[in-house]
């Protein structure tokens, strides 16, 4: 499926592009952080310590006895801060309003984003490629029906549809035992990885259409190729023709689109979590929402998880650009919130 020529193109493109290298480093870093979170995080990300709340990150301290007036809902309120809080090495990125360690939460947050990004994309590929190949291979009425259906899906802006679906179905989460904790390697860490199941389903439901369109285009262009006709003449079934001849030849554009969609889905997940719809209790988007209320006293709670999202998405986008430039499947990047 991946020919030597493809590998050569990938390597050549990588050598010439500093951005592609940065992208790969960022993506690898995020993957490693997500996988080895129990060893990298200094604390249990859920563990509260109210005596140590709103500790600033290293290099900062919250100013003492500062009073200032602030507009709140049109009236002036006096905000007073009485204690000096200094940064501490124990919490390099500070703590949130409940005294939870920001570094640990940011590290564990990578798991949520990555799991939703990868599983959501895989499910979207599965649905989209099945629909698209069926529509493109059979053509005619099947094609018309499936494509009108995808038009209707496209009439809903993806975030709006996602909010509607998840808001109505509720945020169901799936608990997967953390292998490192089960094996006793990191006993003090949370025992389960919480996968926001509805979010995965919903992001796949709003994104499969892009894969269906690309797969359909490929199937349409391939179904009249000589080798497909030959296979049909030899009596191969439709299923085996699609699986053995059409699918392998459509892999490249689907792979490139999938990479770009991982970035879009990470952004979508963070938006859903920000709005409080995801059901997960550990996510970068959720932490940003919680930090929103503490902007005046603890700017880092909302700021740090956002930086993590930006790095993750830039990394995936750069890898996507690299694949697109190297493999040149002739599709435009689409995605984002």
């Amino acid at each position, binding site marked *: 499926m991946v020919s030597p020529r493809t590998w050569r193109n990938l390597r050549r493109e990588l050598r010439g592009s500093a951005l592609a290298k940065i992208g790969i480093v960022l993506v690898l870093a995020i993957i490693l952080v997500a996988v080895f979170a129990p060893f990298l995080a200094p604390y249990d990300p859920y563990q509260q310590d109210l005596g140590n709340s709103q500790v600033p990150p290293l290099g900062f301290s919250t100013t003492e006895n500062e009073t200032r007036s602030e507009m709140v809902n049109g009236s002036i309120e006096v905000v007073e801060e009485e204690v000096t809080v200094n940064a501490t090495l124990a919490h390099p990125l500070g703590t949130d309003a409940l005294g939870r360690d920001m570094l640990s939460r940011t590290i564990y947050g990578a798991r949520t984003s990555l799991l939703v990004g990868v599983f959501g994309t895989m499910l979207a590929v599965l649905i989209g490629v099945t629909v698209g190949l069926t529509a493109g291979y059979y053509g005619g009425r099947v094609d018309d029906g499936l494509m009108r259906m995808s038009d209707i899906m496209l009439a809903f802006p993806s975030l709006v549809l996602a909010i509607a679906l998840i808001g*109505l179905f509720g945020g169901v989460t799936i608990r997967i035992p953390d292998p490192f904790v089960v094996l006793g390697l990191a006993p003090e860490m949370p025992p389960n990885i919480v996968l926001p199941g509805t979010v995965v389903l919903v992001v796949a439901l709003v994104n499969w259409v892009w894969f269906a369109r690309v797969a359909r285009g490929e199937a349409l262009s391939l179904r009249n190729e000589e080798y497909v006709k030959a296979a049909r003449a030899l009596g191969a079934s439709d299923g085996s023709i699609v699986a053995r001849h059409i699918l392998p030849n459509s892999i490249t554009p689907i792979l490139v689109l999938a990479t770009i969609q991982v970035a879009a889905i990470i952004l979508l997940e963070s938006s859903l979590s920000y709005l409080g719809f995801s059901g997960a209790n550990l996510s970068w988007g959720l932490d940003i929402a919680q930090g929103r209320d503490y902007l005046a006293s603890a700017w880092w709670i909302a700021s740090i998880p956002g930086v993590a999202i930006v790095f993750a998405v830039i990394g995936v986008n750069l890898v996507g650009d690299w694949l697109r430039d190297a493999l040149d499947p002739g599709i435009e990047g689409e995605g984002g919130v």
Partner: protein
Amino acid sequence: MSFARFIIKRSLQGIFVVWGVVTVVFLLRFSTPGDPITFIAPLDASPELRQRIAEELGLNQPLYVQYFDYLTGLLTGDMGYSYISGTEAATRIFARVPATVELAVAATVVAIVISIPLGVISATRRHEPADYAATTFSLAGISTPNFWLGIMLVLVFAVQLNFLPTSRRPVGIVQAVEVLVLSGNYAGIVLWLQHITLPAITLGTYFTALVTRLTRSGMLDELGKSYVDAARAKGLPETLVRYKHALRNTLIPVITVLGLQLGTLIGGAVITEAVFAWPGLGTLVINSINTRDWPLIQGCLIVIGSSFVFVNIAVDALYAYVNPQVVYD
């Protein structure tokens, strides 16, 4: 096919898609868990009371009757009544439209005003610091979640610098202009500008970044073509070559992508509204979902979906009109 027939054909397809949207939105209510009556009735309501509420709202009718009633209602502009407040859903929804349109238009203006010059500068000064700055900005711009950007802008410009308000929309542009025209008082315009600046930048940044990228790569393509060499060879000033010839051809694909990204703009508006408590369709749809106020949810989704469909048709028409090479199919 002529232009007129193309428009008619696309509009008919659009109506079909809108009918699909209405049907999907209608069915959504029956496929989601939770009986709406439990959200409307008091917790200790008797079965008789629940029955009466169901009858009053027509919820005891068979599905196809409810569907038919809903469709005929929609044709006369009736979207039912809010379960929570009892007000007309259509009135509530259309009262929110100006705020969202205002925000979307402001964001688009921000995006176009910044991105096209930036893309041109980037392309004409390739591999110079200005190009690297523009490329970095656009990469960051398409990778930043806009709700976070909005919060960071609030942190810097409202909380730290105390320079702009954090949220809300005290006045709409229409009222502000009315006051200006009638009494010559521009305070309303100033107030409007103060409140829309941060939301418009928040929503506009993704598009600014996207269009900068597109303009840059489009300009690079066009500047490498032979008609540009020909224009230069016959002695046209470089400014004319760049802006009259190359940029014009670059803008055609930019329009298409902007049309395709309209859904992203509307989705972005929803979350931007949530960050800034902006009283548009986005905050209305989120609140209605939280309270399971079905007539409002359905109405909002239908308004958003159908305006999206028809604006897309308008973009297609504009594109076909601007670009004589388009083949109508």
